């Protein structure tokens, strides 16, 4: 049972890492700000979510697990708001040119 | 005894990079960044001393940790003062170049003429 749980954790974390690598690759290779933001949100939301999911079976208490989920929720919220602000600023920059 | 030699070498390299940046960077803001890099490197050296003092069930000696926390806060206050000075210099002189000739070539902005009285 324990090995299965550890395997599941490792699998989820590995999948999260794949999304992070994809997000970083997108950040480096995409041509402009809006597409790069698109790549970053994948890393932030899904990647972090998978890592948190993988870490949840490893924590020693419900409260720590809830804190991990709260961290993920805060990052989601923050990255959504900031992406929207950056996108609007970049759009306005482009309009000006 | 936890092995912290590699940590120490990395921190020493950080301090060296910061010193190089402090001397070489042409803009004061970059010098400020380099100063902060030196600061974090020096604090990491403190942290190595703390880690080597792990005893009595603690992972690291608490006294250097407290000193570093105080140091981080004071370093931030100093950075804030330096940034305020930089902005004031920009307002008054229209440039932050410390080298007068380099500044005079390209500057024309910032015309607060009251000066620092």
């Amino acid at each position, binding site marked *: 049972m324990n090995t299965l749980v550890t395997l599941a954790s490792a699998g989820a974390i590995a999948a999260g890492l794949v999304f992070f690598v994809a997000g970083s690759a997108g950040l480096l290779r995409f041509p402009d700000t809006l597409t790069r933001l698109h790549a970053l949100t994948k890393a932030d939301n899904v990647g972090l979510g998978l890592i948190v999911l993988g870490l949840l079976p490893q924590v020693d208490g419900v409260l720590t697990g809830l804190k991990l989920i709260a961290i993920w929720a805060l990052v989601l*919220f*923050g990255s959504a*708001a900031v992406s929207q*602000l950056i996108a609007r600023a970049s759009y306005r920059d482009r309009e000006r040119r | *005894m936890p092995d912290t*030699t*590699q*940590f*120490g*070498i*990395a921190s*020493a*390299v950080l*301090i*060296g*990079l*910061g*010193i*190089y*940046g402090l*001397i*070489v*960077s042409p803009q004061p*803001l*970059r010098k400020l*960044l380099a100063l902060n*890099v030196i600061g974090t*490197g020096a*604090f*990491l050296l403190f942290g*190595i001393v703390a*880690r080597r*003092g792990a*005893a009595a069930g*603690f*992972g*690291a*000696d*608490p*006294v250097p*940790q407290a000193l*570093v*926390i*105080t140091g*981080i806060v*004071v*370093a*931030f206050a100093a950075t*804030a*003062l330096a940034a*305020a000075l930089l*902005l*004031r210099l920009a307002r008054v002189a*229209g440039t932050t170049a410390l*080298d007068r000739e*380099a500044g005079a070539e390209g500057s024309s*902005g*910032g015309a*607060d003429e*009251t000066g620092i009285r």
Partner: protein
Amino acid sequence: MNPAAFDLGIALLVVAIAAFVIFTRDAYAAVVAFVAYGLLVSLRWVMLHAVDVAMTEAAIGSGLTGVLLLGTAARLRDECADGPPARTGTGLRVVAGIVALTVTGLLVAAVVGFGETAPTLAPQAAAALPATGLGNPVTAVLIAYRATDTLLEKVVLVLALLGIWSLAADGAWGGRPGRKQRADPDGGLAYFARRLVPVGVLVGLYVFWVGANHPGGAFQGATILAAMWLLAMMAGLADVPSIREVRVRAVLVAGAAVFLAVGLALLGFGDGFLAYPPAFAKALIVGIEVAMTATVAVTLVLLIAGTPERKA
């Protein structure tokens, strides 16, 4: 223990980002890279088993310093019409390189020459911990064992603030720092601030409260509270306080004042300056910490807000 490869990998990453901060041409890129550098250094602190310091580094060293320097870089770009900076001469570069290499070499020699046994104060700290009623040794060192240091640090913070305020132009003397932020009250930033600030205040108070027994404490909690106020200001939901306001000035000195008052009271009626009697130690320490948190939060906000530029 961390596997050696992980240690080495993180060490190389930290050095690489620091090199980018120093060598890149663009000032903005350097500041953003510095924020990332600060977060990695925070990770290094966790690897050194110093979690309180890691939180302080992430919050103040990386976060607040990043906000401060990014704002400064933006204002400098607006106010200066500098052309590209003059290239530093090769001679200066060589000298700088030699100085840097010498210092690094000396430090590496010192680190490698560390002996097998290390001096440590951990046993004494652990032995005196029950008398303070705290569970977190770092908080005990900050407020009890090295209390005078923390008291003087409060004074240093106020002095830095006075230095910043003294740079005001004549017309704005004693006024409000910074420019009025104009954000769309129906926009994304205002919505974000309205939702996040209550949660952030709760997290900040929790981090401060839990610092008595777990990693956390007054500085970390105060930084989160300061960040929430800054967010509210940036979203246009609150304005920077005028520095003439009595309430602001009262809160700024409250930390040092309460500390000093408790110390002098203990000098008069107790065993000595800041020698907490074991019966009341926890209560006194928590009282001092509450005043400290409020002071540090307001001080951090005003340090970032900067020099007064508007009339009060």
